[in-house]
């Protein structure tokens, strides 16, 4: 991607868009040879996004709102599509919302994948998506005052903390079920390891009829922080702290976005080291998920074994970066630490041991007869639903789509055409697990290849100039799928806007469809199969609508039921 060819990949999409909407395309700007921002008239926005999405095999990557009133008197909306057709590139549809009329036609009715993004831009900028059926908040907490929009440049200081408006959690949950159902709330505090999130399962007997969830319990205001307190070169370390599991992928995506914006050519050795570390991170993350998959089907010795083996990858990370997690290895322009012969040999040796151990554990896991029964045809993600909602990573590849950022949009040290894509067509929990198993072995091979053939030369370049108001996308394939960042530089050695989208953001909306039609005892397993959130909660309150009674079941009971599937606590 560093090769500077005059050829601009994706020009045919721009031409197609100009033909389809002759008077609506106002401007095209190219950030790199594979990234274009096309400004369209506001009223043509939904149709432009729909055309690229459904006619030209685009996938919804992210959407960034931006308060550009200080630059051109409007709010900017940037809908980012990752094109999956013959010309693999990123197309950004940009529309300007006037300051005096802060509303825009919603894209969601035409492209359902946009729903969370449009709810978020309403929360953060106060821009009203006209025609969006879902009027609930997404990101801001229930006790946040109305009419205060954190990301508007003139709304508030980044440290401003308004007094809570309420102590009640009053988020309305949506139930589309036709019949009467029982409500099973789960969360926000979970027993196992992950972020808080609240689930409502609407059940009839044992069957899940519908589900809804409230996320963003951990919204802290990172994007505002990146624009205010921190310099643009410090944000690589902030991006490491977006996620404790795949933080390095975020850090690379962020560095990548600034490097794309400023046209920085990162030395090849630095690129290769980034890829080696990204794959190391993938190893620990996938082994973690395989361990948890064992746990949720009641195979706890497998869980402990996977965690034992996973420690090797953590020690590997500590040796290569100095820390088990939160590597803090990236700078704009390269990385902070080389891999010398000693580290290389230790890594190769550890990978050899790891391969034998993981192979044995996977054999044991897949030949345990109970496993097949618990995970086959459970939590189906229909390919049609997947196409409409643009999920990413193993969730998408488990439903038969050949999409992997490392192969589609090569970045860092991944060479074009050299990265295998693992696909399964079962659409169920088993398929997603098998995709992860194959990726573990592929990651080890990628690391070995890169180590045996590391390019020479420096690991860091300092040869670039900070140029105000440049913007571009950066992307990585994190263990959970594509991470994509949109950054715009300011004029004060800071960022004007940073939009960071984690992979799981695109995977949550399809979870509802995956839960429907399954039984309550499979819910934790299905949630774990998208790899965000591992379980239910400290306790479960069951409300039986028919009898108007409330019964509280200990979480342990709920988890036991998931593992053993006898003596339902709901009876």
């Amino acid at each position, binding site marked *: 991607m560093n090769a500077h060819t005059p050829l601009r990949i994706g020009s045919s999409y721009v031409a197609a868009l100009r033909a389809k909407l002759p008077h609506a395309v106002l401007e095209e700007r190219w950030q790199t040879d594979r990234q274009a921002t096309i400004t369209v008239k506001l009223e043509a926005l939904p149709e432009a996004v729909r055309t690229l999405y459904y006619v030209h095999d685009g996938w919804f990557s992210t959407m960034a709102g931006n308060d550009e009133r200080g630059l051109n008197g409007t709010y900017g909306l940037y809908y980012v599509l990752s094109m999956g057709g013959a010309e693999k590139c990123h197309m950004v549809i940009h529309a300007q919302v006037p300051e005096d009329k802060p509303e825009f036609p919603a894209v969601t009715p035409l492209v359902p994948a946009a729903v969370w993004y449009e709810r978020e831009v309403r929360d953060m900028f106060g821009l009203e998506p006209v025609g969006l059926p879902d009027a609930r908040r997404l990101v801001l907490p229930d006790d946040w005052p109305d009419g205060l929009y954190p990301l508007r440049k003139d709304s508030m200081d980044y440290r401003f903390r308004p007094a809570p408006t309420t102590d009640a959690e009053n988020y309305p949950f949506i139930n589309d079920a036709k019949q009467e159902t029982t409500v099973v709330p789960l969360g926000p505090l979970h027993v196992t390891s992950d972020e*808080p999130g609240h689930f409502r399962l609407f059940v009839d007997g044992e069957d899940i009829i519908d589900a809804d969830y409230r996320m963003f319990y951990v919204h802290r205001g990172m994007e505002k922080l990146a624009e205010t307190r921190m310099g643009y070169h410090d944000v690589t370390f902030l991006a490491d702290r977006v996620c404790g599991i795949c933080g390095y992928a975020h850090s690379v995506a962020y560095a990548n976005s600034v490097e794309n914006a400023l046209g920085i050519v990162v030395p090849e050795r630095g690129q290769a080291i980034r890829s080696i570390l990204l794959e190391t991170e993938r190893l620990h993350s996938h082994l973690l998920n395989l361990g948890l998959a064992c746990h949720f089907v009641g195979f706890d010795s497998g869980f402990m074994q996977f965690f034992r083996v996973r420690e090797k990858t953590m020690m590997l990370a500590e040796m290569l970066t100095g820390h088990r*997690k939160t590597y803090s290895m990236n700078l704009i322009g390269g990385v902070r630490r080389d891999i010398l012969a000693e580290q290389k040999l230790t890594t190769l040796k550890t990978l050899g041991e790891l391969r034998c151990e993981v192979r044995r554990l996977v054999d044991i896991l897949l030949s345990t007869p109970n496993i097949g029964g618990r995970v086959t045809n459970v939590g189906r993600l229909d390919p049609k639903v997947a196409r409409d909602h643009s999920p990413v990573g193993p969730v998408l590849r488990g439903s038969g789509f050949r999409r992997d950022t490392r192969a589609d949009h090569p970045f860092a040290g991944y060479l074009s055409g050299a990265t295998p894509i693992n696909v399964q067509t079962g659409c169920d929990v088993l398929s997603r697990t098998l995709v992860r198993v194959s990726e573990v072995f592929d990651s080890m091979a990628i690391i070995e290849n890169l180590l045996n053939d590391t390019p020479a030369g420096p690991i860091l*370049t300092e040869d670039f100039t900070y140029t105000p108001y440049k913007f571009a996308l950066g992307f990585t394939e994190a263990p959970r799928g594509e991470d994509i960042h949109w950054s715009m530089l300011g004029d004060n050695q800071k960022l004007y806007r940073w939009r960071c989208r984690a992979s799981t953001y695109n995977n949550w909306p399809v979870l509802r469809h995956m839960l429907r039609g399954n039984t309550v005892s499979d819910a934790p397993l299905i949630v774990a199969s998208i790899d965000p959130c591992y379980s239910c909660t400290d306790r479960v309150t069951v409300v039986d609508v028919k009898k108007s009674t409330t019964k509280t079941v*200990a979480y342990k009971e709920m988890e036991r039921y998931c593992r053993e599937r006898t003596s339902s606590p709901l009876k």
Partner: protein
Amino acid sequence: MNAPIFRDDLTIKPQGLSMSNEVAALKGRLLKSIGRSVYVYRVDCGGCNGCEIEIFAAITPIFDAERFGIKVVPSPRHADILLYTGAVTRAMRMPGLRAYEAAPEPKIVVSYGACGNTGGIFHDLYCVWGGTDQIVPVDVYIPGCPPSPQATIYGFAMALGLLDQKLKETHHVEGEGESVPLIHPEIPYALRVAVERRAREMAGYLHGKVIAEAFLAALAAPEPASVEARLAALTAQESDPRVVEIYGQLRAVLRAMVVEQAS
């Protein structure tokens, strides 16, 4: 016009909780010596998962905190210790308080990780209340971003009086005429900086420093052999081809500087 903005002017502070003397006394006894296994309940108030994942590592086979009787339980009602991670976000204030209320007295609160201790990198943001101690009284702080499993187990051991606090403290008093020595005063400063910078570009901060030091030591060695011969010997001793490559680069820097000086 541009009056400074102080954080306290912007911030509503959540009200802290207080505890009765009786409970405080019980808790003091528990902290000194618990004398039995303890049950821990995790409360994630807005962490990034890094802390959670290291707690997980601490309770699984390699580190195995259960051998010290430390067990993670699924309900705050069973807990002796509440382990708070993450900067407390607005949305997690009420769930965090509910978990605290649900645990039986006397309970120990451990604040875990940089964010739990102070709010960390997020300490002053609009959707964050700060560290755990902004909403509940904290007894033990475990630092790190995230703390390693070793640090986690050590922190618990401190909390439970499993370890006597035997830190070997020493004091150093600066003597008459004592000062920190300069590195390689005999090498021109500009040359040293150029070598160190090139080494950092090639091998990063950690390895670059080691490699530059080896190179400068060879350069400054008071041997009869010529500089070129000494550096050739240094390169010949090295078995790592990558380090040999970097030495080559450093010699090029040296040559460029010397030629520049001479001409």
